[in-house]
């Protein structure tokens, strides 16, 4: 814990309006956890992402989605029906006093309601609007339907991920799980919004930003594009390691406890590395013939690559729990790691030292839960989960009455008329 924990977040003072489904809610969380006042605007009854599991105690309910909880921390929540004139009028008032609008509607939807950036910036020239959509605002696929899996296919993630033929014959390309297409889009959206905000500190003017999730996914495959552009190569999928134009040695080994270790070896087999490897294996009495001086000869090493990897390293890792291999190897300077399931992170001592896990209070349940924390520690401003995800319309009174000055009676009328 550092003193910075008590400081305001780096984005303190910013007001963000988020109108985002499951594709864009993570971007609002990134902004909110860093101190922005993110107001999530949901349709009456709540955003559809509240129906995404898993649920608290496996009981489906819009207030019990753990996915929604996770992606909507540090936000206030109001409901607003943009299909009504009252809803639109309230939205215009909110937009006039906001810094950023993040929206994930289908292209053209806000313009059809005269709530697009061009219209809204007339009353608020400092307004930044970021549209984050599956394919962007224009182009032949603009109106295509999508999903996380669809983006992982078209973006190129699947073409790179899968199995060696020996491990799973005729395996399909595999889409890594966890909803990462949405993460990729949100990272680029966050970057674009921040760039526009930095620019506004100088120019005083807002602007409109069009971010495409498909573009973001297509940009996130490391050297696959360069392999094609410069060498005409189309890469092959390999178990638990990099795609490659030609087969490369395995890097994933089964440990004694049945889990795996990622041990980067290929391309590193030189006399120095083999000497260090011999010391590591020898500290467990498992160096085999690796301490023999003949391994000081590069040609001999190259000839015996398979023996080193498939016999010595594989047997060494198979004799120990994955966590022990991970720490023993890292302490000796090897860039190796245990392949852990997410739950193993909860007991990770390094994360504990960094104060990573946060207790988040759910007052209405009378309980607190442990949430993942910050990707980076800011020493001059804080990252914090200021509140659990909002309940449906939780801040309607606070924002519509206390901030916009509506009376309780007016709020009642708006609710009766399904404007909120």
């Amino acid at each position, binding site marked *: 814990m550092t003193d910075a924990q008590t400081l305001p977040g780096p984005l303190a003072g910013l007001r963000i309006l988020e109108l985002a489904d499951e594709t864009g809610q993570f971007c609002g969380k990134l902004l909110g956890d860093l101190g922005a006042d993110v107001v999530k605007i949901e349709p009456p009854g709540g955003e559809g992402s509240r129906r995404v599991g*898993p649920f608290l*105690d496996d009981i489906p309910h819009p207030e019990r989605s*753990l*996915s929604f909880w*996770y992606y909507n921390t540090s936000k206030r929540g109001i409901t607003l029906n943009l299909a009504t004139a009252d809803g639109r009028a309230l939205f215009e008032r909110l937009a006039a006093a906001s810094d950023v609008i993040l929206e994930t509607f289908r292209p053209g939807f806000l313009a059809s309601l005269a709530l697009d*950036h061009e219209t809204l910036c007339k009353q608020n020239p400092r307004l930044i609007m970021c549209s984050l959509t599956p394919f962007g605002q224009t182009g032949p696929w603009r109106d295509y*339907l999508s*999903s*996380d899996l*669809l983006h*992982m*296919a*078209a*973006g*190129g*993630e699947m073409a790179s*991920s*899968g*199995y060696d033929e020996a491990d799973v014959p005729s395996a*399909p*390309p*595999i889409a890594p*799980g*966890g909803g990462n297409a949405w993460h*990729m889009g949100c*990272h*680029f959206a966050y*970057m674009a919004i*921040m*760039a*526009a905000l930095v620019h506004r500190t100088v120019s005083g003017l807002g602007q409109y*930003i069009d971010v495409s999730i498909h*573009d973001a996914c297509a940009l996130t495959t*490391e*050297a696959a594009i360069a392999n094609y*552009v410069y060498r005409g190569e*189309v*890469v092959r999928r390999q178990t*638990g*390691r*990099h795609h490659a134009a030609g087969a490369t040695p395995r890097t994933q080994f089964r440990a004694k406890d049945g889990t795996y270790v*990622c041990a*980067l070896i290929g391309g590193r087999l030189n006399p120095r590395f083999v000497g260090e490897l011999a010391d590591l294996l020898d500290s467990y009495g498992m160096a085999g013939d690796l301490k023999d001086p003949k391994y000081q000869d590069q040609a001999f090493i190259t000839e015996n690559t398979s023996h080193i990897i498939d016999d010595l390293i594989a047997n060494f890792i198979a004799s120990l729990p994955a966590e022990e291999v991970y720490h023993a190897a*890292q302490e000796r300077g090897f860039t190796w*790691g245990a*392949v*852990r399931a997410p739950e193993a*992170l*909860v007991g990770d*001592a390094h994360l504990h030292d960094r104060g990573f896990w946060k207790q988040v209070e759910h007052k209405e349940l009378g309980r607190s*839960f*442990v*949430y993942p924390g*910050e*990707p*980076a*520690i*800011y020493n*001059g*401003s804080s990252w914090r989960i200021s509140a659990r995800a909002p309940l449906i319309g939780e801040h309607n009174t606070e924002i519509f009455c206390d901030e916009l000055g509506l009376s309780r009676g007016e709020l009642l009328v708006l609710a009766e008329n399904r404007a909120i």
Partner: protein
Amino acid sequence: MSRPRALENIRVVDFSWVRAGPWATRWLGALGAEIIKIEWPESERGRLPSTTTPRNAEVNLNTSGNFNDTNVNKKSLSLNVRSAKGLEIVKRLIAISDVVIENFSSRVLRNWGLGYDELCRIKPDIVYVSMSGYGHTGRNHHYTTFGPVAQAVSGLTYLSGLPDKPPAGWGWSYMDDTGGMYGAMCALTGLYHRNMTGQGQHIDLSQMVASVPLNGPALLDFTVNGRGSRRAGFPPGNRAHWPGTPLVSNYRGPTVAPHNAYRTHPGGYNDWCVIVCHSDEEWQRLVQMMGAPSWAGAEKFATVAGRLRHQEELDEHIEAWSMTAEKYQLTERCQAAGVRALPVQSAEDRVEHDPQLRHRQMYQAMEHPALGIHKVQNAPFKFSQTPASNHLPSPMIGQHTQEIVEGLLGYSHEALRAGFDDGTFWPARRARFPYMEEMLQ
């Protein structure tokens, strides 16, 4: 008159190498910051060895295709920072810069005499982003990562694969790309905060730690419900649920079927199309698309529960149909009918065949002095006022040394020549590139 860029007049001193750090500064460069890459040929990592040098080109420090794609929008200063003179020069550069960014292991910059305290003495409001494997604090800060190790240790690798098989993982360094994104995000956040408050700061980013929040719902399923991811049927391949295992959320959206990759004509390595139906209505549209075959009318496929239960049979039927068409054809027909479908695309597919990426100008031809004209990946965000796109090819090593040393820092031409002779700007005994000889004339 050309329009301003978002980060006009922002200068970044970039010590980063390999992939994650350079991927961060690439975007700051696309957004208009001046990126000055500090490099030294003896300890360079990222330019060599290269498996992406065109076959007809000589392999040297300036001919890696992947380096070019990763380092557009930057300038290169070759400088031996581990010499007293080099350190003095880089301090003068930091004094007129806004951001310092590096992705060394946790103690390197401090050992050079450029720890955060020293950076503050040189430039009090500096935004310093360190992108190390495990961060600068915590007991494992000295551990090292590459993308695949950060992915393994953080739980990301485990999310990818078929049940009862080894993890398939990510076929590339996802966390080098994504770690780079966070590097740029941290720098931008720090810059905004500085512009608003006048205060700089040190932002301690860790590649391994930054991977963990990407597992949010899986982690909450454990911390709230006590359900770990080591369980039957997880990970479920490309499906939302693996048949014959308990029906629980697998953290990839709604639990539905069909939800899979299907082979398409002519059955080549990347001839696959993914199809997903989020509702009965979408399923019925797919049934119509397939010509309403009799199997699809069976009662067991009428409900999502039935389709999940009989997924093996369902997927076999769908694949028998998908094999009759080519993947782009299938995509167009499905999407026209309101069915979620997209092709699995290789790099070649994306660069050559994807009409949307072409429309968005995602692959932009640029001329590089040593590599010639090639397509380079472009920016995914379109700004109305401050356009972001590639504007400089990747620098040849030391290409901008004269421009920076003489033009920006005001050293004399004699000082530049002396620095080449004494090993400050290039190892004294190493052959110089022709453009270096030119700048010494």
